[in-house]
């Protein structure tokens, strides 16, 4: 396994929290999956009937160039990749995204549809919702690449190739937040993907199942509940966790 340090250089503030690297790589690879290609003619969106309907994808089934390891007490393999590490936040604030009913377009409605509408609830509800915005110049992940990649390239080269297709990260990327200007993939001597050394003991670098055998004197963690593998939103993967803090 080859330890890597991956840096994402940002050109605009990031909204919400940065993603985990293994999830990003799986997202890029998923567009190459046979089931997706068959149903979409290679486009991003399906234009035909997906052929994998009814067959759930098991966590870890999407091939990425990062090594995965099995831990005690959890059924799925966990990538050797740290949680995102943000550089010093130059500005931490809130912006808002809004919506209002387009009353100036009432003339487009059929005469029978022209009526008084409620704009504080229901389908026409107006809103002004907050979004946490942080100005950071880069985000870093430490990870370990796989020894053998199907394409024959090194893990670093393959990772760089996949990440070139990630143009922005975080929330509301369609509105210009989290715009990526460059990806750097560097080889490192030491593996900091799960733990990093410190004077007080090893520091936890990645969210891991609480059932993992942790080193003694573990530092910098809190207990939580969630998914330790992608897709991170999937409740079926939830378990007791230790996460960096």
């Amino acid at each position, binding site marked *: 396994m080859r330890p890597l340090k991956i840096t994402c250089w940002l050109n605009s503030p990031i909204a919400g929290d940065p993603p985990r690297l293994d999830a990003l790589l799986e997202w890029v690879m998923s567009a190459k999956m046979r089931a997706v290609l068959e149903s979409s003619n290679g486009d991003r969106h399906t234009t*035909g009937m997906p052929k994998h309907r009814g067959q759930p994808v098991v966590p870890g089934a999407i091939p990425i160039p990062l090594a995965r390891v099995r831990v005690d007490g959890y059924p799925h393999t966990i990538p050797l990749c740290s949680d995102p590490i943000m550089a010093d936040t130059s500005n931490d604030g809130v912006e808002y995204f809004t919506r209002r009913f387009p009353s100036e377009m009432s003339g487009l409605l059929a005469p*029978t549809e022209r009526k008084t509408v409620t704009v504080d609830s229901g389908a026409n509800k107006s809103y002004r919702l907050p979004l946490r915005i942080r100005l950071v110049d880069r985000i870093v992940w430490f990870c370990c690449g796989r020894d053998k990649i199907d394409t024959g390239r090194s893990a670093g080269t393959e990772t760089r190739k996949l990440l070139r297709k990630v143009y922005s990260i975080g929330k509301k990327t369609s*509105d210009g937040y989290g715009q990526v200007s460059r990806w750097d993939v560097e080889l490192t001597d030491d593996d900091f993907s799960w733990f990093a050394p410190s004077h007080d003991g090893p520091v936890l670098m990645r969210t891991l199942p609480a059932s993992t055998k942790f080193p003694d004197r573990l530092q910098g963690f809190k207990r939580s509940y969630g998914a330790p593998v992608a897709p991170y939103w999937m409740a079926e993967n939830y378990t007791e966790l230790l996460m960096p803090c």
Partner: protein
Amino acid sequence: MSTTYKILALSEVLSPLTHAKGVEGNESLIAREPVVTPAGVRFIPHLSGNALRHRLVRDPGAWFLIDQWELSGKLAMSQLNFFFHGGNLTQGGNRQNTSRISDMERLFPLIRLLGGSLPDQILSGSLLSWRGTMVCEENRERIFRLAPSGWEFRGEKLRPAESFVDGYQYTRGQAATSAPSLLPKTSDPEEASNLMIFSGQCVLAGAAFVHGFVLQHVSDLELGALLLSLRLWQNAGGTIGGQAARGHGRLSTSIHVDPIADEDAAIGAYIDHVRTVKDEALKFLDAVYGAAKAEKAEKPAKKGKAKDATPENNLLA
């Protein structure tokens, strides 16, 4: 096969630009974003990606579909929301009708581009709209990073952002003073005036913004939908921000499509597609979002109870 396009745009400001974000007392303030500079964090005027996305793409694209399919005055409320906001989730349940999703993405390349919502399912789009970055010294590094590789900038020092910021002021008129002869003689000449000054910040004409779009894994139809929307927006005056009715916010925008594509062919293919699928798209809209209710036939008035239809009683007669 799909392609990922990057469209870089340079917008020159032709009239005072008032893309506002908040007020200070009676004065409206322009939208600014924090930028790290060698001298520390500075707040620089910008254009929000959300505004660029709606004004340059969704709004002109939706109007084009409504014109082509002759839908003006025929839409149901949910259909209006679909065209101008992408639709709403209005039904519960956790079922997904993949056939209906496929139909929507096939019939509406614009919605495939921008994303939208069926009544029971949110669908993501393919378009990343960048924020508008002001061409100024504070943003020098960011602008260089946005440019395609191989582009060279003959670089004198750029002007600082604040040199592009000034103010505007207007006065709301008083009809009692501008056209007093139209008022009845009984009106009170001492009535309190509602004359009001209002003012705010603006970005001056002559400033410029770099922005752009990334179309991820799209077909030529989505590219055509975007390019057509940009052309329609530019031909209609190309405004962004508030007070367009007073002539504010006009932009002159040039674009560079990477990889180079035949823009006219993509637009032509999209227009052909829109015309070809018209009947199917209208059926889809009515089936999924519900057709506008038909007007009720007017009941004949009961004998002896008909209202007097003289012009005094029927102002619309």
